[in-house]
């Protein structure tokens, strides 16, 4: 027996910070990176006598998430207090939602090795984030930073429909892409604005009953998700194989050692004493609200991917990269809307020059200086033979840096190929007249001479002759 004889069963709980400007229950800023406790007030410090007032944008963002994941939006949901003591939790309770969450029963489709799979979403609820304890401050003291206290979160809980660590990573990536597309989350695992806990169990293949599940906490990168889950699957299988039993517990992933270790057992588990939050009335969603949000939902990554493949005829590889960044995909469509050439050609430019320069200059799509019509006209100049591919790259780099029109740049750099057949013919005539010996050789059958003659014409035209036109003119004059 080995890991291969066991079926892992995984459910994920994702906490995603919502990108509202202010906190969920007070007016403090949610901006990351401020000096400790700079973004706090009496409310998010849990002073005596303070009361929460709901930030309505938070609800709008959560409904976006709920509808994007196909959830039912409950017309009435209930705020609840989750009670526990910790220095980063100033009120001694977290305002959350418990038995009546805002969103329920959705699904997220992911790609797996065996084709697409639907992972059901059990629920999505709103809650406030806690602050942060800082333990390595020196002097044996711990410090508390409450800037994050009250930052809005959605908790997205999946059903145990995930069957491997790679599926888990796929689910998280797909979920993150959606949240970023919706403009409600920045998708940043490292800064903790997108966090994941995993419930992992294993059962013998063919068994009908799930094994005892273990909760894994502190998984803060896609790489760690897979590592933590794989480690935990291995640990559980080994335990069962050696005749042991998996205990109900919460385990912490140690990224340095690449292992999970017990954080608290079932006996040490908190009794959160949930009860309805008396300081907040039930959250009521007015009629027509969900429909309005739905109308304003953007096209989601998966649908866009299918459309990029279907409508533009792009290879899946290209489409995936373009769709991976909503702004990039939007830019692609804007350029393609004016560009008359094939989409694949544009895609090559996006995946090649554009992304390379964006990476080199660390520039986001939103900060690009050129306009979509400029990009399109650059490509059209290439298509029309006015610019060679290499010259176009030079022009693009300049256009990327300055936002100047490609034609202007090409003209200034003298890169435009002469299209005037009269000028080409005149140059050809002059070269033929000046090289009667070579003409003779060619006519005698020594066709290699053509290359030399082309070179002479290009030289005469200072490199601006369109090679195709020069070739054609030479052949015609030489009687081919």
């Amino acid at each position, binding site marked *: 027996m080995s890991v291969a004889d066991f079926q892992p069963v995984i459910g994920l709980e994702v906490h995603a910070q919502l990108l509202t400007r202010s906190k969920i229950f007070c007016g403090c800023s949610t901006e990351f990176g401020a000096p400790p406790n700079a973004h706090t007030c*009496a409310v998010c*410090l*849990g*002073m*005596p*006598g*303070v*009361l*929460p*007032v*709901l930030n309505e944008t938070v609800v709008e963002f959560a409904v976006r998430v709920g509808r994007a994941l196909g959830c039912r939006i409950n017309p009435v949901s209930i705020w609840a*207090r989750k*009670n526990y*003591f910790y*220095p980063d939790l*100033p*009120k*001694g*309770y977290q305002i959350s939602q418990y038995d009546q969450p805002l969103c329920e029963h959705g699904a997220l489709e992911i790609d797996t090795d065996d084709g697409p799979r639907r992972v059901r979403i059990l629920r999505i609820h709103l809650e406030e984030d806690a602050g942060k304890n800082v333990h390595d401050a020196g002097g044996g003291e711990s410090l*508390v930073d409450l800037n994050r206290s009250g930052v809005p979160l959605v908790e997205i809980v999946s059903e145990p429909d995930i069957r491997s660590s790679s599926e888990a990573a796929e689910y998280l990536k797909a979920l993150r892409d959606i949240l970023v597309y919706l403009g409600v989350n920045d998708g940043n695992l490292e800064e903790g604005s997108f966090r994941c806990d995993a419930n992992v169990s294993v059962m013998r293949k063919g068994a009908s009953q799930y094994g005892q599940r273990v909760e894994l906490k502190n998984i803060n990168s896609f790489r760690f998700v897979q590592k933590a889950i794989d480690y935990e699957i291995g640990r559980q299988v080994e335990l069962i194989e050696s005749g042991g039993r998996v205990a109900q517990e919460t385990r912490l992933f140690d990224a340095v050692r690449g292992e999970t270790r017990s954080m608290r057992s079932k006996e040490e588990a908190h*009794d959160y*004493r*949930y*009860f309805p939050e*008396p*300081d*907040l*009335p039930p959250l009521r969603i007015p009629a027509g609200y969900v429909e309005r949000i739905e109308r304003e939902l953007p096209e989601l990554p998966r649908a866009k991917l299918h459309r990029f493949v279907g409508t533009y005829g792009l290879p899946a590889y290209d489409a995936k990269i373009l769709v991976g960044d909503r702004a990039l995909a939007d830019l692609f469509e804007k350029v393609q809307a004016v560009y008359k050439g094939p989409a694949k050609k544009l895609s090559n430019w996006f995946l090649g020059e554009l992304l390379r320069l964006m990476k080199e200059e660390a520039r986001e799509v939103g900060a690009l200086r050129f306009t979509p019509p400029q990009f399109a006209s650059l490509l059209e100049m290439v298509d029309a033979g006015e610019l060679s591919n290499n010259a176009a790259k030079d022009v693009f780099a300049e256009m990327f840096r300055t936002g100047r029109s490609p034609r202007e740049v090409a003209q200034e750099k003298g890169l435009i190929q002469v299209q005037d057949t009269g000028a080409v013919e005149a140059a050809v005539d002059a070269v033929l007249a000046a090289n009667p010996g070579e003409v003779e050789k060619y006519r005698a059958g020594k066709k290699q001479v053509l290359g030399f003659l082309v070179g002479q014409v290009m030289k005469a035209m200072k490199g601006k002759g369109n090679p195709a036109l020069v070739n054609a003119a030479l052949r015609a004059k030489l009687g081919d």
Partner: protein
Amino acid sequence: MEPTELSMLELGKKLGSGELSSVEAVRACLSRVDRFDGQVKAFLMVDREGALAQAEAADRRRKDGRRAGPLDGVPVGLKDLFLTEGLPTTAGSAILEGFVAPYDGTVVKLLRAAGTPIVGKLNMDEFAMGSSTENSAFFPTRNPWNLETSPGGSSGGSAAAVAARMVFGALGTDTGGSIRQPAALSGIVGLKPTYGRVSRFGVVAFASSLDQVGPMTRDVPDCAALLQTIAVHDPCDSTSAPMKAPDYLAELEGGVRGMKLGLPREYFELPGMDPEVRASVEAATRALEKLGAELVPVSLPHTKYALATYYLVAPAEASSNLARYDGVRYGLRAEGAGNLLAMYGRTRDQGFGLEVKRRVMLGTYALSAGYYDAYYLKAQKVRTLIKQDFTDAFRTVDAVLAPTSPTPAFRIGEKVSDPLAMYLNDVFTLPCNLAGLPGLSVPCGFTKASLPIGLQVLGRPWDEARVLRIGRAFEREHDFHRRTPPLRAA
């Protein structure tokens, strides 16, 4: 006549005409504090300089023709549960000793806008948990009518200060009777408004779904005027009703002719009721009948469950509301704890009194996994039934009359070791909080031992105007509220 014999509105008139100054009024209050508070012990803190400065500002406004309203310059006191920027706020607890509030609560802001100088912060049962002010971490307050007895609680300091004419009016809070019971026991008027009528922002929370701020005054017109000042929708309190309060003085003198007033069987049949209280309250109901009201027997059948329901709901919410007093950010922190858990435990052990600990434990238990359904959830269901009782009664009557407290003021120390006996003192006031209704207590007589008795008027939600009108109709017929306790300077 001493200025302190005047009501708030009477003083307000004299301040408006220039016959008296606010500074004189504040000085008169401070003089009574100096003479009597050594015995009564109503104040936890007297803000002499602050009150005088506010009085001077009020006098300047009058001279400039910019009076803020009818109560501009009228000195008041605050139960020490209201956060006041720059002043200590203790909630009667050692855990908040030395805590200086970083902001003014909404009603405090409203009072400041109305121009009422704040004479000081008044004693209370710790975190408003109690019915005698004996649970104050600092000292018990004494009833000005008989210094051996309690003024009631938890707003006992507020009631005693108003009764002893040390302030013209005060604000209290009422979670299960904490305004009305001390008002009754101290011979003053006290109103618990409809839940949601007055903002709770900046009021130290006890039980959030029951707490309500209200006025404590010498007569009903003052009560109406003070309610008018604070009954303002507050966007900082999500349970504050988004509606405009009516003019509470407009119909105040309209009388009770034609009104149907309910006498709930369950209240008058309580076995433990003091016979003098019963007689006095029954006499008051007959007086109202004489004034043209129709007395109608009604039944509130779930009344007997109110006490048990209250002592599940209120402690459950309190156990959560008091979690923030953990020694981390403000207030007391126990010294010498070696780790976080010990710091929490010792801080809360040293900082909380016996009754607070009892209720935190009761509430924690009621919310625990496996007990929630049997206790908290069941209590919420019964609460709905109690509310329904009143809804049914108000289909036939306009208001309900009842005693405020089953006994007059009891001796200090008499009930403090018997929590259940103390809890029973609130049996007539609790249902009103559970149902979220407005409830008024007005003086309706005295016992042979010269202890005050209160009549309670319970109204429909948002119907404070009618409740006050009934109280006023009765008040006009007698002088109970005009009597002054027999205090002698020590």
